[in-house]
């Protein structure tokens, strides 16, 4: 019972990690860039939703949609205005650029809110649900539902629609795609937008249950990395499973070993995976496909 309850709570956490990891994966697969500023996009999503809910007084769902749309635009702008312009330089440049814009976002959040710690009013004030002896909060249910719907929509779009097939082709070979007349720049912009928007959903979902502060993104970046690494870098399905596994692992480590270790589970996962299975849990399956 203890283990099951831990696993259940872990899955709810993991769902958010999965979303963040997936959103980082989208950017990575499409543009080969690993976005070290992604945590700050998650933070930005949370802050924007706060703005709309608390300051503009909009309902949560409407605010969430607006926030995600804004972050999509921000993602496109970052790609076209910053990343695309340093294409010619070394790869280190991309990483530094991502860190830089993330830092600017953090600075903006800090300049606007400064010393204030921002509590969001509770959004889903519903009683917890009991499944036998297991308990699950309404917050967790909402997260499950939102992430589930998004994941299904994403995978359908990417693997089943014709637009998705074009995207897949582009991920395989940019040069080929350019020859066939596809606008690679626009594609990169859109994928950055999608990545930022998905990341923002993560921020939107945690906003009601955590305290908002400008440094919020850092831990999501690490969890996203850990989930991605676990799932084999660049694999969408792997990122999702990796996120869920990480969420459950954190709770189990906390429950059975020490709660002090919860915060570093992600780091341990990264180091262990790279030491033992550098291609992630599903590395082999992916290698065979190529």
């Amino acid at each position, binding site marked *: 019972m203890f283990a099951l309850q831990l696993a259940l709570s872990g899955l709810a956490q993991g769902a958010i990690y999965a979303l963040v990891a997936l959103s980082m994966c989208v950017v990575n697969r499409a543009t080969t860039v690993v976005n070290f500023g992604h945590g700050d996009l998650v933070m930005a999503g949370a802050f924007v939703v706060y703005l709309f809910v608390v300051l503009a007084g909009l309902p949560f769902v409407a605010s969430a949609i607006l926030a995600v749309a804004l972050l999509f635009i921000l993602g496109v702008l970052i790609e076209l205005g910053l990343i695309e312009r340093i294409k010619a330089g070394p790869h280190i440049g991309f990483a530094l650029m991502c860190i830089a*814009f993330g830092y600017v976002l953090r600075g903006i959040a800090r300049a606007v809110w400064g010393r204030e710690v921002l509590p969001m009013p509770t959004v889903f004030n519903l009683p917890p649900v009991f499944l036998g002896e297991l308990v699950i909060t309404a917050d967790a249910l909402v997260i499950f539902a939102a992430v589930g719907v998004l994941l299904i929509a994403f995978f359908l779009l990417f693997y089943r629609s014709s637009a998705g097939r074009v995207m897949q082709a582009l991920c395989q070979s940019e040069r080929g795609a350019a020859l066939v007349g596809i606008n690679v720049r626009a594609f990169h912009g859109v994928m950055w937008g999608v990545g930022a928007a998905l990341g923002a959903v993560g921020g939107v979902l945690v906003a009601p249950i955590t305290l908002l502060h400008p440094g919020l993104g850092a831990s999501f970046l690490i969890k996203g990395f850990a989930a991605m690494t676990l799932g084999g870098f660049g694999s969408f399905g792997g990122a999702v499973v990796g996120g869920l596994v990480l969420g459950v692992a954190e709770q189990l480590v906390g429950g059975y070993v020490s709660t002090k270790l919860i915060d570093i589970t992600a780091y341990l996962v990264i180091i262990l995976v790279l030491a033992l299975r550098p291609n992630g849990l599903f590395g082999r399956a992916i290698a065979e496909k190529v």
Partner: protein
Amino acid sequence: MRFFLIPLAAAAIPLVANPYTQFMVNLMLVYILVAVGFNLVLGNLGQLAFANTALFGIGAYTGAMLMAHAGWPFWLVIVPAGVAGAAAGFLASVTALRGIRVYYLAIVTLAFGELLRWSYIHGERATGGTDGLAVPRADFFGLALDSETARFYVFLVIVTVLVKALHNLLRSKIGRAIVAIRDNELATASLAIPTGRYIVLAFVLSGFVVGIAGSLFAVLIGRVIPESFGLIELILHFAMVLVGGLGSLFGGVLGAVALTALPEFFRGFPGMYEMFFGGLLIVFLLVQPRGLAALAARWFPALRERYYRER
């Protein structure tokens, strides 16, 4: 010998500085080591390693713990601090050698640094936990380092020696091998250069220099606390190297001096620090990716980075 003119000129600083400006100058000296050490891996070797704050922290904690717990004098802990940093650098290089993918090194070293910080927080008995560890009054071969001026001269000598050694190194077969690996690792091996060995060497040397910087930092601040070695510090290190000039020793010095001093001017504006550093990085990446050093070399060709020496 022209090299030594700069530290010689700097030796006059205490005549015009008050203890505050002197402290800032001492901090600059520490960051010069941080930046030139980091630059060796990031700029010269071209490896995206995020371990620099970890190396810095290991050096600081090693120095502080040896002084506080084992009662060693300052002059005796400098080398162990460097060795501890070098050992951490070695660990990072092992990952770099395995680095099948460009970003793995970055992620692993990031995780490594945060794990270390966690261990500083939880290894209370040795590290003092979040409260940090007080560094006993340092003395350098009997000379008490209790004034900023005394610290300045000791730091100046250490920094001069290390930077000069790196300067020699970069203008030798070793420096060329390291840069060659960055430019084309496969071709480097075709010239009978053992690339793996030089990758390890660059990481180890970088760790050594940054580890020593850590021990100087510990003595300068008088206390080591885990918060000093987090991600914000890492971004400062990145900014120093990039703004100064990736792969340029002189650039590292320039970046360290500029970015230790600049933030002093906009203290107290919330968010300004982050926006300034983020904005600075963006501007340099877009407009001047080779940093201040390249700008300076345009005006003074003598400052261009060379990987050989005439004399």
